[in-house]
């Protein structure tokens, strides 16, 4: 209610200002106000919208609803140009409003204040039987779970669930972010600057979340999880700038606070706790955490070395500390599961990560046409968090598992060295060459400890004529790692002696995770800028990148992406400007997998048979095109603008089996036998048509009429027609449909089309 009142007040204010401006237009230009002068712009008006625009994508990050709207900015300063106050207001009173205010003295300092908010809707069709209570507890209607629990067999339970979910009420699935900040920048003397700021991000609302109640592949429930989070960001810097050197001391503190420690939901299938399943599930939310970073950076032209050529040394070091010490939740909320094995070794993690970043760069021009650059960067992620051994656990609040798990203090160090040279041959050509080395040194919980990439770079800049520039770059990189240890991460996820647990989690030994895999990458970039005459400009670009994971028998094998694009701006007449653009991007990924059926009884037996191998090729193809025309119909009186933009995106995943999957069932009947399936294409089309006419009543008063048509069409099989109950979602590879015991959110992503007509008055003062 409070929100609506604010909106109403804001819009009434806008309407009042509109009427005032229409009938009492102030003078144009810097308006004298005694010792002060003011200038700025104000736009207010009304908007009507028709069409089918009840859609989350329509409202994402913006508000375009029928009603009044207004934006404006102003600058108030003294004629001697010293002190000033300037402000900006965008979308006043709407839920994407933004305000900025700045008070200062030019060149000396300023105080900046800002506030804004943003909507993040996911879907307007979400439906859920859960009701949100306090402290992140979501409950089902009375009798919901007990009724289903009382039904015999999965088929009956599934039917009962379908009936119970049929009338699931709609639920809000949107969070709002409000951000506000203050910054003080002060230069007490030329060359000395203090800069300090504080910013708060507040996120409240709901977001889609899910909890599982069985494992593996057992029932799960999707729900609208409450969100109540804040991020505090503090920055401070002292900068000293001299002719020959500069230095900066900085601090950045970032603090995350979550008002919800956990989220608890009812199990839709079970009303009573038992030793094997729980009537409720509880998960830990993102814990409170803090990050501090202290940095020193600067550069020097090294004049004291008295070199005969220009040089510059730039350096930056940063030391960071990340902490997290939120109290642990108990292993389970299930009252029927209790064991000394679930005693926690510590009350909290005592998370302690230290980061160090060092970056040093030396640039020099030993010859008038030769530039050299040597740079080294180190990023060290040093995890001091203690490893905890938890003797038992409860998977998804279900049965006690007396198998220990050990946490991992994952850490890594990344080194990068760059050596670049460029030589200007003449006014027309500049040649560039470079070498880059990158090394990852990871902790022993990763499959590859050391990974080195060597890259060779070549480039050519051409300016054949004053109106044309051509830039081309090519680089090739070869990445090789130390021996891949497929089971090594398990040694740290489970205890090394626990072979049964290791088997349960085993990955295919020939799999290579792409971020650790050997790779050969080729990359080519080209950009052309042509300005053949004052009335024509042309930009053309293209790039091609292929990453071949040459040692990956399974996993991502090939990543190929290329794009082309260009835009042309043409002024055939002094009163007409035509701009057009087109771009196309293609992304193709090839990866190989294997169906590895297994039993769920001891001893575990996994079937690893190459006839169960299959391959997928995923491809994104995205076209963007646009055309706009700006016309001055009557000089200084009537302007018009017309524009059309379209994006067409298609994403496909096609599969191919080396042969039909092995029909032999796994050791016990738990397999999914069958063939790999192509996924239906995902397509979206976004079209925007804009026409706008501006009539300049006076030099400083403009009436603007704008018609905008937007249409968004999405075809996405993952969300289209998604209902809270999906009867065919428990389908195996043979096409056999099992009983569905899962709860979905029904969070479809809606298409929209909207005709937006806006009339506004714009005043410059």
């Amino acid at each position, binding site marked *: 209610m409070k929100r609506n009142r604010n909106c109403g007040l804001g819009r009434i204010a806008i309407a009042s200002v509109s009427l005032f401006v229409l009938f009492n237009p102030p003078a144009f230009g*810097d308006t004298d106000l005694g010792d002060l002068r003011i200038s700025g712009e104000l736009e207010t008006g009304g908007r009507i919208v028709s069409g089918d625009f009840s859609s989350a994508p329509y409202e994402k990050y*913006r508000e375009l609803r029928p009603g009044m709207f207004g934006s404006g900015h102003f600058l108030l*300063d003294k004629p001697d*140009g010293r002190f000033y106050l300037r402000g*900006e207001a965008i979308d006043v009173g709407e839920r*994407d409003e933004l305000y900025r205010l700045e008070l200062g003295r030019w*060149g000396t300092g300023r105080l900046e204040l800002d506030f804004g908010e943003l909507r993040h809707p996911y879907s307007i069709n979400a439906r859920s039987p859960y009701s949100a209570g306090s402290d992140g507890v979501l409950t089902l209607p009375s009798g919901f779970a007990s009724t289903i629990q009382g039904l015999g067999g999965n088929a009956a339970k599934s039917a009962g669930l379908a009936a119970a979910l049929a009338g699931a009420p709609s639920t809000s699935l949107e969070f709002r972010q409000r951000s506000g900040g203050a910054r003080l920048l002060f230069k*007490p003397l*030329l*060359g000395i600057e203090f800069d300090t700021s504080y910013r708060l991000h507040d996120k409240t609302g709901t977001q889609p979340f*899910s909890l599982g109640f069985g*494992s*593996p592949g057992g029932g799960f429930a999707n729900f609208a999880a409450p969100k109540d989070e804040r991020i505090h960001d503090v920055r401070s*810097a002292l900068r000293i700038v001299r*002719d020959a050197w500069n*230095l*900066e001391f900085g601090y950045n503190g*970032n603090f*995350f606070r979550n008002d919800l420690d956990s989220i608890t939901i009812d199990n839709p299938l079970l009303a009573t706790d038992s030793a094997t399943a729980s009537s409720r599930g509880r*998960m*830990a939310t*993102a814990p409170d*955490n803090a990050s501090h970073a202290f940095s020193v950076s600067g550069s020097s032209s090294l004049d004291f070395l008295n070199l005969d050529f220009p040089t510059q040394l730039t350096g*930056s070091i940063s030391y*960071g500390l*990340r902490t997290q010490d939120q109290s*642990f939740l*108990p*292993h*389970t909320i299930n009252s029927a599961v209790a064991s000394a094995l679930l005693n926690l070794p510590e009350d909290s993690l005592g998370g302690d990560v230290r980061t160090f970043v060092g*970056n040093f*760069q030396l640039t020099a021009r030993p010859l008038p046409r030769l530039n050299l650059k040597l740079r080294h960067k180190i990023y060290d992620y040093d995890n001091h968090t203690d490893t905890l051994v938890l003797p038992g656990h409860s998977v*998804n609040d279900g049965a006690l598992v007396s198998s220990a798990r050990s946490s991992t203090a994952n850490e890594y160090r990344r080194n990068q060295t760059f050596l670049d040279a*460029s030589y200007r041959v003449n006014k027309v050509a500049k040649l560039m060459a470079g070498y880059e080395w990158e090394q990852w040194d990871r902790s022993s919980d990763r499959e590859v400890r050391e990974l080195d990439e060597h890259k060779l770079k070549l480039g050519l*800049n051409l300016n054949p004529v004053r*109106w044309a520039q051509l830039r081309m770059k090519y680089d090739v990189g070869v990445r090789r790692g130390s021996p891949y240890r497929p089971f090594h991460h398990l040694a740290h996820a489970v205890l090394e002696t626990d072979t049964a647990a290791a*088997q349960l989690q085993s990955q*295919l030994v020939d*799999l290579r995770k792409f971020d650790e895999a050997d790779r050969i990458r080729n990359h080519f970039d080209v950009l052309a*800028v042509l*300005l053949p005459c004052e009335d024509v400009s042309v930009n053309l670009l293209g790039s091609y990148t292929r990453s071949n994971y040459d040692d990956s028998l399974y996993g991502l094998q090939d990543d190929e992406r290329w794009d082309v694009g260009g835009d042309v701006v043409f002024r055939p007449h002094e009163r007409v400007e035509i701009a057009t653009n087109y771009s196309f*991007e293609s992304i193709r*990924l090839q990866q190989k*997998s294997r*169906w590895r059926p297994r039993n769920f009884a001891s001893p575990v037996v996994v079937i690893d048979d190459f006839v*169960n191998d*299959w391959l*997928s090729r*995923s491809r994104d193809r995205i076209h963007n095109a646009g055309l706009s025309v700006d016309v001055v119909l009557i000089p200084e009186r009537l302007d018009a603008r017309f524009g059309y933009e379209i*994006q067409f995106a298609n994403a496909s*995943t096609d599969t191919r089996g080396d042969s039909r999957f092995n029909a032999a069932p796994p050791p016990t009947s738990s397999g999914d036998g069958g063939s790999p399936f192509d*996924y*239906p294409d995902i397509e*979206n089309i976004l079209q925007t048509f804009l026409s706008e006419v501006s009539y300049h009543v006076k030099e400083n008063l403009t009436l603007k009429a704008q018609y905008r048509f937007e249409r968004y069409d999405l075809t996405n099989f*993952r*969300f289209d027609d998604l209902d809270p109950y*999906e009867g065919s*979602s428990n389908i195996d590879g043979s096409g056999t449909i099992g009983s569905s015991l899962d709860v979905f*959110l029904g*969070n479809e992503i809606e298409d929209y089309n909207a005709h937006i007509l806006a009339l506004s008055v714009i005043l410059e003062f």
Partner: protein
Amino acid sequence: MKLVGFGNFVFALSVLLGCPVSVSAEPGAYVGDATCYACHADTKAPYAKTIHARVLTPEAGRSEKMKLGCEACHGPGRAHVEAGGGKGTGMLAFRADDPENIAVENANCLSCHSGGARTHWKGSAHDSGDLACTGCHVVMENRSLRGQLREENEIETCTGCHLMQRAKTKRDAHMPVREGRLQCSSCHNTHGSVSESLLTHTSVNENCYSCHAEKRGPFLWEHAPVNENCLNCHTAHGSTRQKMLRLEPPRLCQQCHVESLHPTEARQPSNKFVIGGACNSCHSAIHGSNHPSGFAFTR
């Protein structure tokens, strides 16, 4: 008392450091703004609205150079005036079409605007690419509300060259860039940085965590690729896939997981491992979990 102490500190520091930004030319080489406007009258009105016009004056200038007005940036004008105007008379014209002059002109801008966000300009991608300050900024008139940008806003300015990034902001899953609530400079420092892609922070993840701090941890159970690089799974500028993912799950997850626990097959398109939240329907804490039983990111 504390403020007095602070003032003393600032004074001592300033005495110690002195003031930068010197004027190198002979005093007689300068002609003053009035002489410039005698020929360049059309530039006066639009320039008068800019911040530079307010700062580069004898009254407001904080250094000898800043008091010089037009000649603070364009250099001494005596020779230009005596030659009757025209090119090749020693003045800096800030025309972006002469690559050999760009370094000289940029150095002139940096004589006042060095340090801070521009500490890492030298050798940066844009410096190496012969990009002139005036390639992105316009000093003689206000085209943008802030930053003296060449176009109306940052996005239009940057995407003049980075056309593909502009196209990506139109995609289904995107940051609030096309809505104007994030700017290119929210993540990138176009003047140079210590990170790849001119990121403002020291790494990709540090950049993302400044707004998505809930994913920072450290967690009891870490998902190692998350720790190393958000871009292992996400794209930054926009994606056809939901949540700005590089690929739809389960195929995204299957790039690194060929399990026995979940037989890794293509699955029917209507299967629960594919629709809705897919893998995240159970592994919902995929960025890391602080739950004692959350080692598989299910709690």
